[in-house]
């Protein structure tokens, strides 16, 4: 009985998540002109069309660059925090943990709003605002795997290195870092993916010359409404995301 409840719950969740997404992904390969089911035929023409729209092409590129840059910063900042937390107890350590995880529950759109107001007043450009927003929003996703990786690395390894004559820097580089490399990789993939698909805060901060793919797709859909172009672009985004996650799993596999 209980087993049946469990199975059906899992089934429902899977259905709700996967079926609609799957349908959109399939539609992107439609040979027809509209959203129809079953597909009239298979083609990649919608991908070609999406690529020929300059805004979509440019925003895709911008998204990739933004994701790469912001994820590098996120991982570095999160690593500093995670190192502190895993090596120290006390109030400050708990404060850092809370601070690093705040963006996870804090409404991202409010961060976007705040940065918008802030930069308008300060006259700073939109790109910096987006970078900051993406760094802040993806920090928690980097922080968790890094803290976990560091917690699995006994402090005694570093102490062993030090007792053998290694200074703080060499013991970190030669001993601790190789242990957490997989965690760093995971953290980086997470940050990339989060930044790449961020919409809530980005919506407020994006503007001419600093337009990400999700925002571009949203406004494209609102103003031109060519749904299959959007489906194709989304599919490209999903495939890149999945590719990153797969790559992360492969390259940074534990053990």
């Amino acid at each position: 009985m209980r087993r049946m409840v469990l199975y059906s719950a899992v089934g429902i969740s899977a259905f709700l998540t996967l079926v609609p997404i799957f349908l959109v992904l399939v539609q992107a390969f439609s040979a027809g002109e509209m959203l129809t089911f079953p597909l009239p035929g298979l083609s990649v023409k919608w991908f070609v069309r999406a690529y020929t729209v300059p805004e979509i092409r440019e925003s895709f590129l911008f998204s990739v660059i933004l994701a790469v840059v912001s994820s590098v910063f996120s991982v570095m900042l999160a690593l500093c925090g995670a190192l502190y937390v895993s090596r120290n107890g006390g109030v400050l350590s708990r404060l850092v943990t809370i601070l690093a995880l705040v963006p996870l529950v804090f409404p991202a759109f409010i961060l976007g709003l705040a940065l918008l107001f802030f930069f308008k007043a300060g006259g700073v450009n939109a790109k910096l605002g987006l970078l900051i927003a993406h760094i802040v929003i993806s920090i928690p996703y980097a922080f968790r795997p890094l803290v976990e990786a560091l917690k699995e690395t006994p402090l005694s390894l570093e102490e062993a290195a030090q007792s053998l004559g290694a200074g703080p820097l060499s013991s970190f580089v030669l001993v601790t870092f190789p242990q957490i490399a997989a965690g760093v990789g995971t953290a980086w993939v997470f940050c990339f993916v989060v930044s790449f698909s961020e919409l809530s805060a980005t919506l407020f901060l994006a503007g001419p010359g600093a337009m990400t793919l999700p925002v571009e797709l949203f406004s494209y859909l609102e103003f031109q409404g060519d749904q299959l172009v959007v489906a194709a672009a989304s599919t490209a985004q999903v495939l890149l995301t999945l590719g990153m996650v797969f790559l992360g799993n492969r390259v940074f596999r534990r053990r």
Partner: protein
Amino acid sequence: MKQQHSPIDGSQADVVLAGVEKRYGNTIALRSMDLSIERGELFALLGPSGCGKSTTLRLIAGFEQPSAGRVFVRGNDVTRIPSSKRNFGIVFQGFALFPHMTVAQNVGFGLRMRKLQKSEMKQRVMSALELVGLDHLADRYPRQLSGGQQQRAALARAIVIEPDVLVLDEPMSALDKILRDRMQVEIRRIQQRLKMTTILVTHDQEEALGMADRVGVLNGGRIEQVGTPRSIYETPRTTFVATFLGASNLLTGKVEGYDGAQAAISVAGRVISIPRGGLERGATVPLSLRPEKIRLCAHSPFMGKVKEMTYKGSTTYVEVDVNGVSFAISGDSAQIRGQHCEVGNLVGLEWDARDVVVLEDVAS
């Protein structure tokens, strides 16, 4: 910051703690400890968890700094010297081998930090591995080794740098019983061959008794007794030492008087003589008598009823009630059977006068 000091005494001491204290906030982990460890000896710091032995180790190794007092190594004050400059070889609890390095790379790490030449490094690594019998596994990774092999690799890594002091932190705790016994003998053998000053931190009294030249028993951040294994086992000074180093009958005696050098002490309603002076007449003194020192016999002043018998294989444990005082006796199973010892029977107890030890602390 490096200062030259002579050790607090003029002996051959290699490691000296002088009034070392450690506080964490309001809790005191170590109380003003004085300790000196001779050159070439194997000194065991023995105590239960939380007794301060790990803290002592961390202070000696330089991972933490004392709140007060000083640490000297070969006459040099190293209190403020970081671990990486102390030249100690440490075998960590759980071994702390670097997982991403082979055995040879692990062992060579300390030499690499010392910027040795490749060829000399290789040669020293191999001879250290040979010493611990691991030369055939130099290219394995730690995860490919058994517990005992990891232990050996950790030992090789610690001794290859020719440390001033070798520190062993609960080195056997990750090993099973049989392997533990074997490694005890082996580590002892290597230590004696290299004549390396060694500090063994352990909670296992058998390990301390079996391996050490001298043992320091710690309790509650204080050293309760320092001495050879035999002296601390056979003449414990406090109740804690008596019970932590094996089972003991803790008895309460009353000093009745003296007969020459023999103190007459009443225990369980009978008077026994103990070759011991300096006790106040009429005083109540705590006594320790080890269960294996008591023999069963047919007749003796101490007659009692057998309350409990537990067969333990080679030995049998017997509990006998003598005038309301419970005596634990541990003896060879065959001998105990020979004394017609059954629950409910009346048996006599006897022991040598010198096996009763007068403890120094207040009886509880």
